[in-house]
């Protein structure tokens, strides 16, 4: 008797579990990003988006805007955010993606080499870069340590938070900025590397895996200085956290590439989404979210929000990503990689 009751209870429990597991539930934390499925049972498609850690704040407004367009009607999104390199390796290792947005170009190149992304992904007008930013220095409210420029980071007792360049794209930009400034755009590599050696060896204590985790560690009290994207600095300032940012006179232009995974299930919709990102309307949304737009007209409108530093180095000044990644960041070979390993192993 009691066996039957037990079995019955077990069946009832599993049935209710399965049923509730089948109940609704969509993809996003933001209610607005959840577009109602197209009426009349029209087929909906889903774009799997893999991105680096910080542009979620932008996509939270861009995705609903895309869904409001004719091309984006009924398109659902599944979004994954994390350390750029880690995300890129996940996609290369088989995680399903239709659209990727990484912090640095080599993370897209990895997918090109894996045959997942078309070789012509960066052939367009903006070279596959829908938005950018600059490297900035985030300090505690009131700037108690008086940080103004790169040299201030090497003052005794200043602890700097920047993520791990082996997983994070943000970390690479953060180290390239002072490297370019100190080496005069790579001409005096030794001076640049000396600076990086002192910075990483004496002032960097923790190795968060992504730009976002670095922010979180900084906000929880670690360190005096956070190196980050300007957009991330704006994001946390707008959230009301007690920090402010200083953009040094010489800094680095961040270009965050986006690409369609041609082998993805929804390449067509992903392409529509990718194209949408470059439209003036979308560019305006990026700018409002704190990212520097690439569309010249929109950029002009927001010029006041994004002051131009005295000297803005670019990756091309250093010879492009291929050279930079090979000579500076490749594991066991690159100069910065070796400095970082020596300091952190």
């Amino acid at each position, binding site marked *: 008797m009691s066996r039957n009751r037990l079995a019955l209870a077990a069946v009832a429990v599993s049935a209710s579990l399965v049923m509730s597991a089948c109940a609704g539930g969509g993809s996003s934390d933001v209610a607005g990003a959840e577009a109602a499925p197209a009426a009349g049972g029209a087929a909906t498609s889903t774009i799997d988006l893999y991105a680096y850690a910080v542009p979620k704040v932008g996509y939270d407004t861009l995705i609903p805007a895309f869904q409001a367009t004719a091309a984006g009607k009924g398109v659902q999104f599944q979004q994954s955010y994390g*350390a750029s390199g880690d995300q890129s*390796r996940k996609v290369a290792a088989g995680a399903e993606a239709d659209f990727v947005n990484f912090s640095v170009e080599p993370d897209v190149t990895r997918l090109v080499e894996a045959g997942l992304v078309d070789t012509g992904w960066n052939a367009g007008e903006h070279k596959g870069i829908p938005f950018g930013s600059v490297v900035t220095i985030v300090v505690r409210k009131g700037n108690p340590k008086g940080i103004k420029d790169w040299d201030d980071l090497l003052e005794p007792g200043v602890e700097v938070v920047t993520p791990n360049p082996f*997983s994070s794209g943000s970390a690479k930009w953060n180290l390239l900025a002072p490297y370019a400034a100190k080496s005069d755009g790579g001409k005096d590599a030794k001076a640049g590397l000396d600076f990086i050696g002192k910075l990483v060896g004496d002032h960097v204590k923790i190795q968060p895996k992504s730009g976002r985790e670095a922010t979180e560690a900084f906000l929880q009290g*670690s360190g005096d200085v956070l190196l980050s994207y300007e957009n991330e600095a704006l994001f946390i300032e707008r959230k009301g956290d007690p920090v402010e940012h200083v953009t040094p006179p010489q800094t680095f232009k961040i270009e965050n590439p986006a690409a369609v995974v041609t082998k993805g299930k929804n390449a067509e919709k992903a392409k529509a989404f990718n194209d949408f990102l470059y439209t003036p309307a979308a560019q305006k949304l990026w700018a409002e979210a704190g990212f520097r737009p690439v569309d010249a007209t929109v950029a002009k409108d927001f010029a006041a929000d994004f002051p131009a530093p005295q000297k803005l180095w670019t990756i091309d000044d250093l010879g492009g990503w291929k050279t930079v990644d090979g000579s500076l960041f490749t594991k066991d070979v690159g100069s910065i990689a070796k400095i970082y390993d020596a300091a952190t192993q």
Partner: protein
Amino acid sequence: MTATTLPRGDSATEPDPPHDEPAGAPPTREGRRPAATAGRALGLGVVGLWLSVIVLLPLAALTVRSFDEGVGGFWDAVTAPVALAALGVTLGVSAVVALLNAVMGTLVAWVLVRDDFPGQRVVNALIDLPFALPTIVASIVLLSLYGPNSPVGIHLNATRWALVVALTFVTLPFVVRSVQPVLIELDREVEEAAASLGASNLTTFRRVVLPTLAPAVISGTGLAFARAVGEYGSVVLIGGNIPRETQVVSQYIQQQIEIDRPANAAAVSVALLAVSFLTLFVLRVWAGRNQRKEARSS
């Protein structure tokens, strides 16, 4: 005692391998014997396959991959300074946590068994909470109290104290739940006798109670230690993950995966596995010996 306080000294407590067939099985069984034997063979096959696919094969793959770059590569990965530092932090903090548990767990068990106060049953039930609570929740719970917005003004996050608090939280039940049943069954007459012979409470506790409790205290402490060594979820938000300071081995391993050094991750995983396994092995041998001793003396 909950299942989580396992492994027990099974090898010692369990009866000798049971008879395959009940001795003198009645003749009526004879006809079904081949079927039953076949069923058992099938059952054993299923058990073997299940345990292999779920537990053994992954660990075997891990071990093999850890030697991807040869024995030298394995050794280099395990002895990298930051890896060693992570091991040191983990073992040190776990030892502190285990000792704290040994003292406070025994005390709590004593109060729950010998004392009598209103609300005792609620407190008793609460002890199991850390077993039921997801570890990430433990982490966020502790962060909300000891983190940057601490309402009591105590900032522990990203310090070793945070690790101690987090690990003590998740290992709380081990010693309590292993000492409690022993205390309940403790023969109080011996204590009374000791007292009537003029022994002070302290002497009675030291000479009579403690020796009886010791095996339970030690096994609970050992399990708490083993759990602390491998813990991840409860330290992930509050620990700070600072290499050489608060980064525990689990976090180091995860970092190696994230920066695409799977062979390093596998090698350090094998080292960590060896530590926890050794702890449990020592406990099991020790428990077995103890039980044999007890059996002999009774």
